[in-house]
């Protein structure tokens, strides 16, 4: 029996915009077990990155709870949050902008250790930095270089080393490979996987790329315009997607193979943004199967099979 | 569009109120007593005290300010301590001269600078570009009062082509307008060049070229309009600098504008006149900025649609 490390309850994050309230994250629920990976999937504007940031309290939640190892982090004071940050970390999408261009590789990796007073002795701290560089496959000779002198893959390794420099147990990976070339992407994915096995890490893996998330995750949650619309174990979601959006998303991925041609579901229209949303299914205006009820009532997330949750009026048919 | 313009005009009001408040308080710091100035050295203590009371100079500054603003809204900026004439009439008489001078200077600048900036950018690192940019930098570095003196020496005293000062017809406008225009020409040229360089690297320029649009049309139609957006900002800022520069240029060329009026009034400690001049300058500058913002909306459709 594995234990739940993180639980998200009725989480909401709204932003004020000139055109109204943007419901970036709107009442989502999920939990993650220790040592597992939850894939958070969706297209631009679906709220997946915002969710990641609210979980780490880099953004304050509008409503709802984030419970990490039994502690509601929304209620923690500064000091409590500081302690927690040692365990909860983030890896960013853009290895170009997520590293301070004025700091060297070793300074970047060292900063969290120094800041959180993990190791006070400079010499021991330096040893630890070298150790971390080895761990993520960064050659030690790069320690005095600046990020802009390195390629995207190595920069992402720096970001990973920084995230691991504390007593990290839980990492939000925000599109960690989408800025990288395919061959480098595979290197980083393998590294993240190895680190998880070695250090028992728990990941939330945020991505728009379903093939990456399938490879990587235990559970997958699909988001659309701030809502969680389907959640299931990866295997189940891929073999038996229920929500029309998930189906379309799965079929839309270009597959690098000549056999097993998948019938494409082409959606109409484009992604809008969840500003002042109506009480309807947010996908209804793009859905090929939408019915009257979809336009007048918002579907709730319901369990249709053990572990498989869907928010759609039509699955019952 | 009307909504946008109205909004911009409304935004001007608090700024102008702030300007009057600020300037009024700065000027109220001026040492010396207005009443004794008006009455001259022979005045008795009593008559001075009487006048002080009458002018309300014993009231707190803020009360004086409110009174001043009340008058200002009725179009009255008080009377000059030095001449006794109304500030309004004096400024009304002088303002057109400053207007003519600065507007001709900015026209001259824009006319010269935009083409040079564009050509420099399209031929980056050519001799034309390099020499042009060095001249522009020197132009920015020359104080207008000195340039004015040099121009007087050369074209008035030595060659006798133009008068060295005063305001007698178009011919006397040429030297001061040119003097005033130098620095802004240089600076608008530099901005035009750099924003043009920025624009011609954009993807949409490649799209245009890939359509088969000729080089000249790419520059004229696709690049220039985009490059003008930052250039116009600088034209607006330069206009402010021109207004400031008018103080110096008018002094050098004895041009009867409000710049010179202001300097003379400062020397005469004629505070109502100084106050009036600064406010008019600030108002003129704000109106220019308003025009600039409206121009923006015409060039850049993104602004227009934000307010429709």
């Amino acid at each position, binding site marked *: 029996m594995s234990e739940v490390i993180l639980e998200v309850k009725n989480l909401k994050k709204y932003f004020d915009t000139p055109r109204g309230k943007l419901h970036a994250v709107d009442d989502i629920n999920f939990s993650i077990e220790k040592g597992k990976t939850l894939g958070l999937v969706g297209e631009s504007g679906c709220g997946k990155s915002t969710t990641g940031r609210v979980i780490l309290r880099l953004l304050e939640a509008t409503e709802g709870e984030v419970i990490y190892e039994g502690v509601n982090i929304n209620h923690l004071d500064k000091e409590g949050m500081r302690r927690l940050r040692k365990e909860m970390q983030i890896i960013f999408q853009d290895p170009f902008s997520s590293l*301070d261009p004025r700091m060297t590789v070793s300074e970047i990796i060292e900063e*969290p250790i120094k800041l959180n007073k993990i190791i006070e002795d400079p010499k021991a701290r330096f040893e630890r930095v070298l150790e971390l560089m080895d761990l993520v496959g960064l050659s030690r000779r790069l320690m005095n270089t600046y990020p802009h002198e390195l390629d995207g893959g190595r920069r992402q390794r720096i970001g990973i080393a920084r995230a691991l420099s504390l007593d990290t147990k839980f990492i939000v990976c925000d599109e960690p490979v989408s800025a990288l070339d395919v061959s480098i992407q595979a290197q980083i994915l393998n590294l993240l996987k190895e680190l998880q096995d070695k250090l028992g890490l728990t990941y939330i893996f945020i991505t728009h790329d379903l093939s990456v998330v399938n490879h990587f995750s235990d559970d997958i949650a699909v988001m659309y315009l701030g809502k969680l619309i389907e959640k299931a174990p990866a295997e189940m979601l891929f073999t038996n997607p229920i929500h029309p959006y998930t189906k379309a998303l799965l079929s839309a991925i270009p597959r690098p193979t000549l056999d097993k041609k998948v019938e494409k579901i082409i959606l109409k229209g484009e992604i809008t943004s969840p500003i002042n949303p109506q009480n309807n299914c947010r996908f209804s205006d793009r859905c090929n199967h939408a019915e009257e009820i979809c336009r007048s009532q918002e579907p709730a997330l319901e369990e249709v099979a053990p572990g498989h949750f869907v928010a759609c009026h039509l699955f019952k048919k | 569009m009307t909504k946008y313009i109205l909004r911009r005009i409304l935004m001007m009001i608090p700024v102008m109120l702030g300007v009057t408040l600020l300037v009024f308080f700065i000027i109220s710091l001026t040492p010396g007593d207005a009443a004794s100035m008006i009455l001259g050295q022979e005045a008795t203590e009593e008559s001075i005290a009487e006048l002080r009371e009458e002018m309300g100079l014993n009231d707190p500054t803020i009360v004086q300010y409110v009174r001043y603003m009340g008058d200002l809204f009725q179009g009255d900026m008080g009377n000059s301590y030095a001449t006794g004439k109304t500030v309004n009439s004096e400024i009304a008489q002088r303002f057109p001269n400053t207007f003519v001078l600065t507007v001709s200077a900015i026209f001259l600048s824009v006319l010269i600078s935009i083409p040079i900036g564009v050509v420099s950018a399209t031929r980056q690192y050519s001799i034309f570009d390099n020499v042009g940019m060095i001249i522009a930098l020197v132009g920015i570095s020359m104080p207008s009062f000195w340039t004015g003196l040099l121009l007087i020496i050369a074209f008035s*005293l030595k060659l006798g082509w133009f008068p060295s000062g005063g305001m007698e017809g178009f011919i006397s406008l040429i030297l001061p307008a040119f003097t005033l225009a130098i620095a802004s020409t240089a600076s608008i040229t530099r901005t035009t060049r750099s924003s043009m360089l920025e624009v011609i690297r954009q993807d949409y320029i490649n799209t245009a070229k890939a359509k088969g649009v000729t080089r000249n049309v790419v520059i004229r139609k696709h690049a220039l309009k985009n490059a003008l957006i930052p250039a116009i900002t600088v034209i607006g800022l330069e206009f402010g600098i021109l207004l400031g520069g008018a103080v110096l240029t008018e002094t050098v060329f004895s041009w009867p504008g409000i710049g010179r009026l202001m300097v003379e009034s400062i020397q005469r400690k004629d505070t109502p006149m100084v106050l009036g001049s600064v406010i008019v300058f600030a108002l003129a500058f704000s109106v220019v900025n308003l025009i600039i913002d409206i121009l923006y909306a015409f060039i850049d459709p993104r602004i227009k649609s934000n307010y429709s």
Partner: protein
Amino acid sequence: MSNKSEVIATENLIKTKKRSQSADVWRRLKKSPTAMIGLAIIVLFLFMALFAPLIADYDDEAIKMNVRERLQPPSTTHIFGTDEFGRDIFARIVWGTRISLFVGLISVSIALSIGGFLGAIAGYYGGRLDNAIMRVLDVLLAIPTILLAITIVAALGASVLNLMIAVGVSNIPGFARVVRAAVLSVKDEEFIEAARAIGANDFIIIVRHVLPNSMAPIIVFATLKVASSIMGISSLSFIGLGVQPPTPEWGSMLAGGRAYIRDYMYIVMFPGLAIVMAVLSLNLIGDGLRDALDPKLK
């Protein structure tokens, strides 16, 4: 590369000092001949300002009137000639350097510290504080810089101190805007969020991450502002609102010499050239720095 040789190479590299970024900037700046000319000129001016007493005697040559030697054209004894009171123009220019550079630097420091502080907190905290600060600055910006300076000096009276205050204050809004824009451009970078994620507080974030990364445009702007302040100081002195005679100042030298330009053109020639050279050199350096600090623009 084998493991062993890598370790050795590593140890060698750890010992070598890391290459500093200012060295990089200097390397790029050196490539610009115009910036180097500017630097040479300004060093010359600094030298003149520092060693003015060794170059010319203040009381004897720069201040004392000497009617017998008035309005002498340049010669070997007076290389720039003498003015209407028979004072040596070269000596006055040398001493004027002190005033111009000193007042220029001090007023920019005033503007940078006040404007920079306001701009930094406005940019970093945003929201209402930002709004309040920017609205106040809008008022200052509505008055053209030089007019604001003139108004301040007119009210406070003409003196070197008031000149510094006037030029300094009138430059505050400019600095606030530049610093704010610089901070804003850095603030939303992901590395700031990364710093927050590792538990850094606002102070550490501002000092260690925001400021170092927003320095480039501020340095450039400050350099250019020293130039324009020097110009502003001489402008004010020219219209009699700055440094008062007989103190040697370039602008007031021009004002004094104005009456004699028909026959004694050199009187206005040299002080004016001094202004141009000082301002130009700083502008050249500013331009060079802009390119050197931001290699992307090249």
